[in-house]
């Protein structure tokens, strides 16, 4: 049986050779540029990227897996699907779709009533003490289901005060629900804002439901935009953190999003997260069926750089499903179906004590890491001043299971983290999904082998660092201009990337641009 679903689509299919022009200038205007005078986003670590945030905001986000690149290795989040109804239609969403194998926003397998949802949250929190954040993000719009959404928040505030609550909305009903929202200690709200211009909006939203009528076209987009901006202002005025998500749709809102970024940050959004459109034809969305492509890696990176500043905070965003459970990039939802939860006996007050201990030890570890990193950054920058001459930046892919180490086999990786090494240091760029090479075979019926997929998603990278890489992929990787490297197994990612960069410099590979990459 089909379940109610929304299905926000996905990504990076066609590597089109049309990168956006170098994005510059926006960062300064946003006041998010780091104090050192570097171009925003091109220097330093995640910690540094957070430095521009006021103290009270930094405190709130530093242990949040979705906002902190560091924290997401240690803390987990979950979403509960209590909000099936929606009050708008987006062209990247297909309301008919549900698939257990799909991993993207708007997709869920099991819809919950608030009582069931709370039971599930308590079960997960007791079994995965790292779970600190509960979000309601759909599969519809939480504020189009106010009764179900707020009942869930009310019960959780009472029963599990150690869990942070978040909500993600299209913003249409935000102003009307603001008073209710502020009752539940919800400190983060995400608004998806894809435009501030109704003419752009008319290409993204075919209709909205507003004041008991279905409104279409430009008029619909104008109302939605007005409500979103009003909601943003009201949230900021009440001291609630606001993150803005935008879906980058090439040819529709890609150029426009730089303006969106300036406006939402000027109004007080603490973070602007630009995500790639996901638009496979088989998802049955308007964009998927009409051939609207998603952005290439280069286009996405260029726009994220242009929107700049704190963007690094979200480079690890995995565009989770609306019912995701676990660490970012993993989904343990199958362990917590209603059947299984029914058999669990949860004593939450007891679990809460255990959770507090786990959180304390994680925080101690994170703090120790931060201190170690700070002292190292100082050393590196002093050395850097002494000897470095400017050389070109290089992208490298890393296979990791987490913990900030190179600890995954090339053939087992279902995603690669992409880092950029340059004279200024190492920075995290984002992640790229693939199919694990070792699953092998010409699956999926598209005639593309798993290795071909990996070669394609690694386009632009000049090295791939992993704990081990087999003989078979070695040749094709080299032929594609990507140097396989298994020599830094179990090392800290940034250190290893820097070491490889220095090796490349010593070998004279940084002097001139290497020949154009061959893409499979």
């Amino acid at each position, binding site marked *: 049986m089909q379940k109610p*679903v929304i299905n926000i689509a996905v990504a990076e299919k066609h590597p089109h050779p049309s990168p956006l022009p170098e994005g510059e200038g926006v960062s300064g205007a946003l006041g998010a540029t780091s104090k050192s005078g570097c171009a925003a986003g091109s220097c330093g670590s995640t910690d540094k990227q957070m430095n521009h945030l006021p103290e009270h905001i930094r405190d709130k986000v530093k242990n949040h897996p979705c906002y902190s690149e560091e924290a997401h290795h240690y803390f987990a989040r979950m979403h509960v699907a209590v909000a099936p109804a*929606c009050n708008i*239609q987006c062209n990247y969403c297909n309301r008919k779709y549900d698939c257990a194998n799909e991993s993207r926003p708007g997709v869920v397998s099991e819809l919950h009533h608030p009582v069931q949802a709370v039971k599930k949250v308590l079960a997960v929190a007791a079994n995965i003490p790292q779970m600190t954040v509960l979000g309601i993000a759909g599969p519809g719009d939480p504020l189009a289901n106010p009764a179900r959404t707020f009942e869930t928040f009310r019960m959780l505030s009472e029963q599990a005060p150690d869990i942070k609550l978040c909500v993600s909305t299209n913003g249409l009903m935000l102003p009307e629900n603001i008073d209710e929202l502020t009752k539940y200690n919800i400190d983060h709200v995400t608004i998806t804002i894809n435009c501030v211009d109704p003419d752009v909006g008319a290409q993204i939203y075919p209709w909205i439901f507003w004041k008991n*009528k279905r409104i279409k076209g430009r008029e619909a987009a104008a109302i939605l935009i007005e409500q979103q901006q009003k909601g943003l202002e009201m949230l900021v005025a009440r001291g609630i953190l606001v993150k803005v998500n935008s879906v980058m749709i090439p040819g529709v809102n890609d150029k426009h999003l730089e303006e969106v970024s300036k406006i939402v940050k000027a109004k007080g959004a603490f973070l602007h997260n630009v995500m790639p459109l996901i638009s496979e034809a088989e998802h049955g969305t308007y964009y998927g069926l009409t051939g609207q492509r998603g952005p290439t890696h280069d286009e996405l990176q260029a726009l994220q750089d242009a929107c700049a500043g704190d963007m690094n905070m979200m480079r690890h965003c995995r565009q989770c499903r609306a019912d995701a459970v676990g660490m970012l990039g993993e989904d343990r939802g199958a362990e917590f179906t209603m059947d299984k939860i029914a058999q669990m006996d949860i004593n939450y007050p007891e679990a809460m004590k255990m959770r507090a201990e786990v959180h304390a030890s994680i925080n101690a570890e994170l703090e120790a890491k931060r201190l170690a990193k700070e002292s190292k950054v100082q050393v590196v920058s002093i050395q850097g001043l002494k000897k470095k001459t400017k050389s070109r930046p290089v992208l490298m892919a890393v296979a990791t299971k987490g913990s900030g180490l190179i600890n995954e086999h090339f053939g087992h990786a279902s995603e690669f983290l992409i880092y950029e090494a340059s004279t200024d240091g190492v920075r995290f760029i984002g992640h790229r999904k693939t199919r694990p090479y070792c699953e092998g075979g010409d699956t999926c019926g598209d005639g593309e082998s798993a290795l071909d997929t990996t070669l394609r998603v690694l386009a632009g990278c000049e090295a791939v660092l992993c704990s081990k890489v087999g003989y078979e992929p070695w040749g094709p990787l080299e032929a594609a201009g990507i140097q396989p490297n298994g020599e830094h197994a179990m090392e800290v990612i940034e250190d290893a990337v820097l070491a490889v960069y220095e090796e490349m410099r010593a070998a004279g590979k940084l002097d001139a641009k290497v020949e154009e990459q061959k893409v499979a």
Partner: protein
Amino acid sequence: MSFEIIESCTNCWACEPLCPSKAIYEAKPHFLIDAEKCNECAGDFEDSQCASICPIEGAILNEEGVPLNPPGSLTCIPLHRLAA
């Protein structure tokens, strides 16, 4: 005078709280409209509420069995693409 919900309904709950006559109810495999209670929102709203928020083309029929939201009317997907 009443509407009907058919099998393409995805059980998204959007219509249920809007119905001024409380004619819509949760059922398996999909929501249903109580024909006795439904008055197509006459006297309550200018537009029938369920048909104004339903995201699924063809899921709600009028008394003649005609879809209130025909294919392509909500998603704007061209009909030849929908069929494919």
